[in-house]
């Protein structure tokens, strides 16, 4: 029998918990009826795996298991879960209790897995993960470096539970902390515990969460608790994975915050590009309300907290706190000056506490284990762990949770598995569009990632996007890209940001077209410093970071664009062309087959050539050549 149905059966007998004891009894009943060693097949249905077809896999897996029902000794439960984290290897599948890990699984493989592994107890070797350069494959999750080197506090349940079933979360400890605060702690004690944990906001600025709660709680009037699920930084998806993979951790964190600040109303602001997160949270709220864990008279204590999900409408600036609150009110999201604090006058001009998704998700565990336990992870200034989304030119793309203070080397090489295609690591970009590019390997590979250190070297933590760049990434073009992004996303109300960004974009665009002039770099620096100094909100005051950090660390590349009219990385199209090295070309014809512009010509087994008139510089030939014969000139 599928436990999803058995859980529903349990649920139908339960009305609302009218006391903490009932919740715990229900939890115990659920735990008693779930055998931790029962066979389970966990199919990752996070956004990354969904994009490569995991929903089809889930369905065929369920069908295959059902079809061979008679032959299977103990029927495994086929379960959908949130993101397992190893997104570049999707679709992913884990078999419990052994912890077998299959990757790049196609729906066609389902039957074989059932026959060979579930019934026969044998591995399907070709679906196992083999690290780059290794001879042997690894069968178990726990032995794969990508997983073994992580420390999962926030992501503890993500990828293990079915996010659509509250009972599965309850089995794994959800709402224990809420029960504890409502029955054993005063609001002040909760705030004290969070202060002790030294938890700092995970949305970017790193403001101490306990202090924010305290100052909000001291304000008179109705309080609001708001969760920032806007995750506007392109290339970052850790908040999405938490909302999609463990929605109750976020809801529980918010409810605890509401209790601490005396609030009865909360909002989750989620960007519209994350439909799965919206769907998962909405369902989770409904299920929690049915059980009396959210809503009126929670756990019979009289505490009331209503939550709803609001969606953004595609504006990056709405991640900023005051803009977010005005967007929640149904208005345009224009930030206001910082001296008006949201904790005093935020949403509906009332005291409002805004935290990031990951910040709230940290709260329940801190309450259960104590602030001191939390400070055992991380560094003096940055306690706990941080989830990064590791993307770009790195082998293992995915979600990575490590203690604060872990070195970039460990993240990029130890966990990320290094750089593909024998390329050199050039830089790591952190902090989203207004972060900075950290040059590597020159100086900073051993830098410890935390709030302070990143700011010192001209970048910032941001919300946790980490984009690895190899030698084929042009730093001038990257800063043009980010500045262009910010030009589009600037709300336009303050002059330094609106005009400064536009001027910088003009100059950078010129550089990438080969029309740079002497003095452009100095002008960029001047405008950049001005924009960073005098803009109204956080968007503008960090907007020039990508330009300033790349000028600081990659000045020679700017000079090459301006003086030699060359793009050394081979990115700025007018500044380079591809040529085939006749010495190396074997005439295999792969580039000719791959070229969408029909620009490659040549006979089989003879060196090919590229027609520069036809070439659209899409890089297909360069990326696909097995003999390294295509040169950037």
């Amino acid at each position, binding site marked *: 029998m599928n436990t999803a149905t058995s859980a529903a059966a349990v649920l139908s007998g339960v009305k609302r918990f009218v006391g903490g004891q009932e919740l715990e009894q229900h939890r115990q009943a659920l735990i008693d009826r779930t055998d931790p060693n029962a066979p389970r097949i966990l199919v990752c249905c996070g956004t990354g795996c969904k994009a490569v077809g995991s929903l089809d896999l889930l369905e065929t897996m369920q069908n295959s298991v059902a079809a061979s029902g008679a032959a299977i000794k103990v029927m495994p439960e086929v379960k959908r879960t949130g993101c397992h984290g190893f997104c570049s290897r999707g679709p992913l599948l884990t078999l419990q209790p052994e912890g077998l890990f299959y990757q790049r699984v196609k729906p066609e493989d389902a039957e074989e897995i059932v026959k060979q592994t579930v019934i026969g107890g044998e591995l399907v070797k070709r679906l196992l993960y083999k690290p780059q350069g290794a001879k042997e494959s690894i069968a178990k999750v726990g032995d794969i470096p990508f997983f073994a080197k992580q420390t999962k506090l926030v992501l503890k349940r993500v990828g293990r539970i079915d996010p659509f079933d509250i009972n599965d979360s309850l089995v794994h400890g959800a709402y224990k902390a809420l029960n504890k605060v409502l029955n054993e702690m005063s609001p002040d004690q909760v705030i004290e515990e969070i202060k002790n944990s030294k938890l700092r906001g995970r949305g970017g600025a790193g403001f101490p969460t306990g202090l924010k709660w305290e100052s909000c709680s001291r304000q008179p009037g109705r309080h609001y608790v708001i969760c920032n699920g806007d995750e506007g930084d392109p290339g970052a998806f850790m908040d999405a994975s938490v909302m999609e993979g463990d929605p109750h951790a976020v809801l529980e964190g918010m409810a605890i915050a509401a209790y601490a600040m005396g609030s009865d109303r909360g909002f989750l602001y989620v960007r519209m*590009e994350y439909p799965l997160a919206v769907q998962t949270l909405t369902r989770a709220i409904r299920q929690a309300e049915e059980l009396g864990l959210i809503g009126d008279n929670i756990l019979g204590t009289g505490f009331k907290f209503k939550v709803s999900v609001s969606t953004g409408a595609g504006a990056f600036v709405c991640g900023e706190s005051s803009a977010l609150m005005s967007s929640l009110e149904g208005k345009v999201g224009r930030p206001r000056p910082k001296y008006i604090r949201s904790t005093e006058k935020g949403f509906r001009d009332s005291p409002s506490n805004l935290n990031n998704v990951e910040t709230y998700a940290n709260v329940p565990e801190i309450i259960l284990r104590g602030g001191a336990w939390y400070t055992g992870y991380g560094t003096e200034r940055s306690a706990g762990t941080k989830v990064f989304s590791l993307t770009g030119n790195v082998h293992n793309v995915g979600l990575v949770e490590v203690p604060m203070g872990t070195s970039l080397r460990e993240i990029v090489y130890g966990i990320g598995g290094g750089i593909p295609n024998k390329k050199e690591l050039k830089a790591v970009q952190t902090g989203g*569009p207004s972060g900075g590019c950290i040059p590597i390997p020159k100086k900073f590979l051993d830098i410890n990632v935390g709030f302070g250190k990143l700011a010192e070297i001209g970048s910032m933590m941001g919300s946790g996007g980490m984009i690895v760049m190899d030698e084929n990434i042009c730093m001038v073009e990257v800063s043009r*890209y980010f500045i262009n992004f910010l030009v589009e996303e600037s709300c336009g109300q303050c002059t330094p940001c609106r005009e400064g960004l536009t001027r910088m974009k003009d100059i950078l665009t010129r550089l990438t077209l080969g029309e740079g002039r002497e003095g452009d770099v100095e002008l960029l620096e001047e405008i950049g410093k001005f924009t960073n100094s005098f803009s109204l909100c956080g968007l503008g005051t960090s907007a020039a970071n990508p330009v300033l950090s790349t000028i600081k660390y990659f000045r020679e590349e700017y000079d090459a664009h301006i003086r030699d009219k060359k793009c050394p990385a081979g990115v700025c199209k007018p500044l380079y062309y591809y040529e085939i090295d006749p010495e190396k070309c074997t005439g295999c014809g792969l580039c000719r087959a791959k070229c*969408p512009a029909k620009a490659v010509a040549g006979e089989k087994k003879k060196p090919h050539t590229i027609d520069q008139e036809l070439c659209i510089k*899409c890089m297909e030939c360069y990326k696909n050549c097995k003999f390294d014969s295509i040169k950037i000139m």
Partner: protein
Amino acid sequence: MPEAEVMCQEPEVDFTLIDRIIRDDFNGNREAMIMMMQAIQRHYHFLPEPALHYLSQAISVPLTKIYEVATFYASFSLIPKGKHILHVCTGTACHLKGSGGMVKHIAGKLGIAPGGTTADKKFTLETVNCLGACAVSPVVVLDEKYHPKATVGLLNELIDQVNAE
């Protein structure tokens, strides 16, 4: 909610539907205006003018405020869209894997700028900032179907397939 219809010309606006969205789904709550507009857009694939006039009356918000919101947020469109919508992700991960070039290529092939719709109303080309599927970048979404690790070649195929319909 009924199957979203794809409109090619200015559609007839169904006011009972708009009314249902405003009153039943969102209780006529002014703060939910953005979400009401999203619901209207989900149905018509853009924001038809008569619907916005109606909305303005129904929740007593000046039309200028509604247009302010409609033009501030990137996801709203005041002009009808094509039958097929092609989203190209231009988030950082996808950009680094060449999505900018793909946008240019499609724009050239279809003869429209990003955000534009072809004269035969078959295609609308849109860019989007990160879909959270960066692991399989560059990502292209045609009518809500994800195409991971897209290439210019694949895009040509997709477009030719639709054009051959």
